[in-house]
């Protein structure tokens, strides 16, 4: 049983968006930039540089959501928020290490069905989520924005991972999928139908990632050949 209602959660997002404005816009644009960097990585010669920048920015988004959203705002109404905040910081460290430092999540233009699904997931996380909130939900003011809200940030991360040219590092998918399941259960309990899709999308992404990984090469193979 959740300790808050849908109205209170909506009011929380509204006050959160207002409090972090214009950082909300900056992070949302950064999320779009991450997607752009990810897509360009495979097409041009600046692969590793773009990829590492995308990893750093994405890790920064997870740090922001973990500290500002979970530990500050969400903790006011949910006693689980400190745990969520800790998990988001762990994910930030994993992204920074695996993606930005070791370069093991090399994204690029879609090469298979999982890649195209990843591109669709990114579009949904960055554009679809706020549009749905504005049209079906409580309006723009309480929209969940990629880069500063946990749900779309998790979906954005999964989408970017699906764009990788090699096998997706599965350990980077665990916390995003866990959060999407939490968000789905929350939406189901609160009766917010437009948010339930988050869990469905995450589980679909897992299936596609696992299937794609059976066909793709290990992450380090290409880099070794290039080196």
């Amino acid at each position, binding site marked *: 049983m959740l*300790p808050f209602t849908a109205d209170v959660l909506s*009011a*929380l997002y509204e006050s959160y968006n207002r409090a972090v404005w214009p950082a909300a816009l900056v992070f949302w644009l950064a999320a779009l930039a991450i997607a752009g960097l990810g897509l360009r990585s495979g097409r041009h010669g600046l692969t590793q540089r773009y990829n590492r920048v995308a990893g750093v920015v994405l890790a920064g988004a997870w740090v922001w959501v973990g500290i500002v959203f979970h530990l500050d*705002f969400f903790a006011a*109404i*949910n006693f689980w928020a400190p745990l969520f905040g800790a998990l988001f910081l762990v994910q930030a460290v994993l992204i920074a290490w695996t993606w930005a430092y070791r370069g093991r999540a090399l994204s690029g233009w879609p090469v298979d069905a999982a890649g195209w699904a990843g591109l669709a997931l990114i579009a949904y996380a960055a554009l679809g989520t706020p549009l749905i909130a504005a049209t079906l939900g409580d309006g723009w003011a309480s929209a969940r924005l990629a880069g500063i809200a946990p749900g779309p940030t998790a979906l954005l991360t999964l989408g970017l991972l699906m764009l990788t040219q090699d096998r997706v590092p599965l350990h980077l998918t665990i916390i995003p999928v866990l959060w999407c399941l939490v968000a789905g259960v929350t939406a189901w309990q609160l009766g917010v139908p437009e948010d339930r899709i988050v869990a469905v999308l995450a589980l679909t992404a897992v299936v596609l990632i696992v299937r794609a990984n059976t066909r793709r090469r290990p992450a380090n193979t290409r880099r070794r050949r290039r080196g």
Partner: protein
Amino acid sequence: MTHDTHRRHPSRRVFLGTLAGAGIAMSYGGRLLADAAAGGLTRPIPATGDTVPAIGMGTWITFNVGEDSALRDDRAGVLQAFFDLGGGVIDSSPMYGSSEAVIGYGLAHVSGTERLFSATKVWTPFTAFGEGQMAESRRLWGVTRFDLMQIHNMVNWRGHLPGLLEDRAAGRVRYIGVTTSHGRRHDELESIMTTEPLDAVQVTYNILDREAEARLLPLAADRGMAVIVNRPFRRGALFDHVGGHPLPGWSAEIDCSNWAQVLLKFIVSHPAVTCAIPATSRVDHMTENMGALTGRLPDPDLRQRMVRDIEAL
């Protein structure tokens, strides 16, 4: 600020209610119990004989509205209605998010708070954190001491109880107790009630969840413990259960004009129950709930019929 002045110098309303409560105790066994029409129904806390209104207020979910000023003002309105209608016992917990802060906000903005009977909980598995958590609760509520400090869901009760006993002896808290909910861990609660010098217990009890009737309520009466009842509406599910059905004919015999009053009067008519704590975020629902403080209560025969009829819905 403490809020026990009314117990030393009871108001006319509370005094009359107390007399009515005494009447109830004396006449249990008649067809219908004496009513509390002259004032709100009150019940004594066995440890001291001080009385509290038999309908209180829970704050799980309903008062957890965060920092939103409009929602805080709205809940302050609910709190004002609670006091205006004779309420006194407010129960919360550090587990309830921002509820304690919102209560404190409300108490600073409404009148009638001299009737407040403040009840909260200590909720941490770490004994060392308990004292700081209780101090934070006092700060959030804006009180200098709590009337009742409970160990939430018996979490680390062995660790917290010695400190609570010291606090009670030193006057830092008036009463101490433990809570449980969902009807779980009744065996452990029974063991604690048997061995520890508690003033109060909080249990789940309603017309469809009556497990507490078998052992816990008689034990509380035997041990001289107040009983606070949570989930009186089974978290709203009881309204779904009775939804669409008209009030039974016997509801007029106990002066109930809505299902909330029927369900609450079933609970507070049990002789071992001190107070039920329904939660609401709406003034109209608060008005319905507090209506259970007045009018006649069901006797044992009618209570059995209430169970049969409502189970059959």
